[in-house]
């Protein structure tokens, strides 16, 4: 099949769908079912087209009338873009299944016409970014992606918090795009070409454009310390959008890093070390803040920061190993990074869909108000639990497979690297990753325990019902994919490693083997669980008796372990990073012995936000206010500007 079919098929169909949504939006009754069906059909079509193209690389340049100004739109379909487009198609397909059931509860809150127009443009631009072969196409698609996703974040823009989130997100994307444009222009002046394959980052002058590009990508990926926008944007957006943003959009910068910097031969140790440090800090920071969150989607957003950190870390290890001429380690780390992209994309979509289903049924995402959903929403519970297991890297799920590979690359580094400093760093990173893993388990145990088990903490959670069939199907689809990628990890790893990722034109691609027998492992674990259940749990009788209630009367839902009481002991260990502010007031006449009212308010203060970002923003707005005085509205003043500019320009042109 010709490669052009994929580009035209996918991109033009998505553009037409956006147009259709735009036309229908004037009629005020855009059918979510029809639009979701369109989305599913396009995603399935592009997936099947991708599968049918085989393993060849294609480059496609659009013919004359379809130009971006004077530049042709250049697409390239190779191993890397195939992997990312396949992930995108899978996520879009499941989103299409999920949408009709979910969007119903937003009726009246958001305008569906606007939502679907932005959504199709968003999907189109993400395909465009991962397929683009030159900087112009890339940046145009990147901009459409940024703006349409900002519009989607602002879907429910009647809330003040949503407006604020959308503005923060928009600001972050503007800075990221600016940095990227700077880096691209610089590289163009160095290499004289817009095509990515002509760019060479091995030279010494390329270090500054590489720095600009990596910073731009880090902002968009939500890497520490640029992650501020992520925990705002994800809870504000509808679950479908946060699933795609977290599942795929923050992987697009990773794709960019691989496509531009890794395949461009970056080896400058400063940049690689920067990526290494940023990756490890954001992995730790993300999971630490995820642990203390109470909003389900905010928690998942912080967990995304952790995982993006892990992916960046693996990329940095790959680059380090390549510079040290250790191709084995480099291949393992590279495969691990991309496999984790794939896995995290699927798992995070699954988790966001489950969180969306909870939000849709219980009308809250606050862990203080949830609880006891296991009996009322068993399907959602099962899919959320499986997603949580996977993201905590419990075998035999896919999260385990890719994290295991990251560990493998680090263990290999401790053995193969020459200098003791490098060995020590690798060893320390292994320790850090284990801490991150442990905190991730704590985080998700908290969510599972507080959110789904126990008694309901609010009236709404008590009356929640199981989500609709479409939602269940989409969750089931993703669960199957997660389990499948975990059980058949050896095939997946082999496939990904053969996509010739490190450099696009290597003749013999490396092959990374995944030595664990995952199907056997899965079978063993499953049978062990079954035996434990049948032997120990099944036979236990249910006994009903009265617990001693300390004389306080009947047990209320407040006596359960809460989100805070679970997280605080762990969080206290990391006091230097996490600043708790606790305000407790006890009221009553004899408040020492018989308190009548106790209120405890716990707040986590983000040091980065309050100490660095807010002062910087204040300075910027001060400068902007000063600049705004230039625009006084007086014609005479404007004329004076024109006149003085003219004089200065003429002086510059003639005297100098």
């Amino acid at each position, binding site marked *: 099949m010709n490669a052009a079919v994929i580009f035209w098929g996918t991109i033009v169909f998505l553009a037409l769908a956006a147009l259709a949504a735009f036309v229908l939006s004037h009629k005020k009754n855009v059918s979510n079912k029809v639009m979701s069906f369109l989305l599913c059909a396009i995603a399935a079509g592009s997936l099947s087209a991708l599968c049918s193209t085989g393993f060849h690389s294609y480059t496609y340049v659009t013919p004359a009338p379809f130009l971006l100004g004077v530049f042709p739109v250049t697409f390239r379909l190779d191993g890397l873009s195939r992997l990312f487009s396949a992930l995108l198609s899978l996520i879009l397909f499941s989103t299409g299944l999920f949408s009709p059931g979910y969007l119903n509860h937003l009726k009246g809150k958001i305008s569906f016409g606007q939502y679907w127009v932005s959504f199709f443009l968003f999907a189109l631009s993400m395909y465009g970014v991962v397929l683009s072969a030159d900087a112009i196409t890339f940046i145009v698609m990147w901009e459409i992606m940024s703006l349409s996703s900002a519009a989607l974040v602002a879907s429910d823009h009647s809330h003040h918090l949503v407006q604020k989130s959308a503005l923060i997100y928009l600001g972050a994307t503007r800075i990221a795009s600016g940095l990227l444009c700077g880096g691209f222009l610089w590289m163009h002046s160095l290499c004289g070409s817009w095509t990515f394959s002509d760019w060479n980052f091995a030279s010494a002058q390329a270090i500054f454009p590489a720095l600009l590009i990596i910073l731009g990508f880090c902002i968009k990926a939500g890497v520490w310390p640029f992650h501020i926008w992520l925990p705002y944007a994800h809870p504000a957006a509808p679950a479908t959008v946060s699933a795609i943003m977290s599942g795929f959009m923050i992987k697009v910068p990773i794709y960019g890093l691989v496509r531009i910097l890794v395949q461009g031969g970056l080896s400058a140790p400063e940049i690689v070390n920067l990526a290494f440090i940023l990756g490890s800090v954001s992995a730790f920071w993300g999971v630490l803040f995820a642990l203390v969150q109470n909003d389900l989607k905010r928690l998942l957003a912080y967990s995304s920061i952790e995982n993006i950190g892990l992916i960046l870390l693996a990329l940095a290890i790959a680059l380090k190993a390549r510079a040290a001429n250790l191709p084995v380690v480099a291949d393992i780390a590279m495969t691990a990074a991309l496999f984790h992209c794939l896995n995290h994309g699927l798992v995070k979509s699954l988790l966001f869909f489950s969180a969306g289903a909870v939000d849709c049924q219980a009308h809250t995402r606050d862990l203080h108000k949830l609880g006891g959903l296991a009996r009322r929403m068993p399907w959602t519970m099962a899919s959320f639990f499986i997603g949580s297991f996977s993201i905590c890297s419990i075998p035999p799920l896919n999260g385990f497979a890719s994290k295991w590979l990251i560990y493998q690359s680090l263990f290999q580094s401790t053995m193969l690297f020459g200098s003791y400093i490098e060995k020590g760093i690798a060893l320390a990173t292994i320790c850090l990753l284990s801490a991150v893993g442990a905190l991730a388990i704590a985080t998700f145990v908290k969510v599972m325990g507080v959110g789904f088990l126990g008694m309901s903490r609010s009236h709404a959670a008590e009356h929640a019902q199981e989500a609709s069939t479409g939602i269940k199907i989409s969750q089931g689809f993703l669960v199957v994919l997660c389990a499948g990628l975990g059980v058949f990890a050896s095939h997946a790893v082999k496939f990904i490693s053969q996509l010739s990722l490190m450099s696009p034109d290597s003749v013999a691609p490396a092959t990374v083997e995944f030595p664990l027998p995952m199907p056997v492992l899965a079978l063993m674990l499953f049978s062990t669980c079954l035996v434990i259940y049948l032997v120990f749990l099944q036979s236990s009788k249910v006994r009903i008796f009265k617990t001693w209630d300390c004389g306080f009367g009947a047990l209320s839902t407040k006596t359960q372990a809460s989100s805070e009481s679970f997280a605080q002991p762990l969080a206290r260990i990391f006091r230097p990073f996490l600043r708790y502010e606790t305000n407790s007031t006890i009221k009553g006449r004899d408040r020492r012995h018989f308190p009548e009212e106790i209120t405890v308010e716990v707040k986590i203060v983000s040091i980065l936000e309050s100490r660095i970002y807010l002062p910087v923003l204040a300075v910027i707005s001060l400068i902007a206010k000063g600049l705004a005085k230039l*625009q*006084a*509205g*007086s*014609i*005479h003043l404007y004329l004076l500007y024109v*006149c003085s500019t*003219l004089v200065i320009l003429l002086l510059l042109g*003639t005297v100098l």
Partner: protein
Amino acid sequence: MMSSVDLSVLSAAVLACLMVGTLHLRLNLWMYGATTMCIALATALTAQTHAEINLICVALLIAVLKAAGIPLFLLWTSEKLNVHRDVGAMIPPPLAMHLSIGLLALSFILTRGLPAPEMAATGWYGAAAGISLLFTGLVVMLTRRLAIGQILGFLVIENGIYVFALTQTLGMPLLVEMGVLLDMLVGVMFSGLLVFRIQKSFEHIDVAQLTSLKE
């Protein structure tokens, strides 16, 4: 060596500078007419030296439409609106006149550095006069508060551009110059009507008070 064309465009520039010094609308418009008449003369002289019949037509058109027609129309407008004197803005008129004379000197310095085109009809005096007219027009717009004053300044700027083009090339083709003249006429008519509208909606034509459109 200063040719007669140079002399007439320079006298146009000097007349424009003098125009800055007064706020009487009637006097301003007459002086603008005189300036434009000088330019028409320069055009005719250029036509004579280069033996181009087209430029004669252009000179006639300028004399009739720009030097007589537009001032008369604006005079009629100001009579209708019952305004005879501008209030003045930013700089007092005598100072503004001296400023524009200073800018005339500056434009001589500026144009000396300009690369002279080979085909130029005259030397850099013409270019200096053109740029000086441009500056003078800007000064007029800066120091007038009434909308008619703004139109006048704009017309002076246009004269400057025309002088620059005339002296630095062998004169523009008739068709182009006629198109420019037509645009000018339409522009002036249009802004004259707009002044009526502004007068009707705001009860004044003071542009210094029209600051609420900045956002």
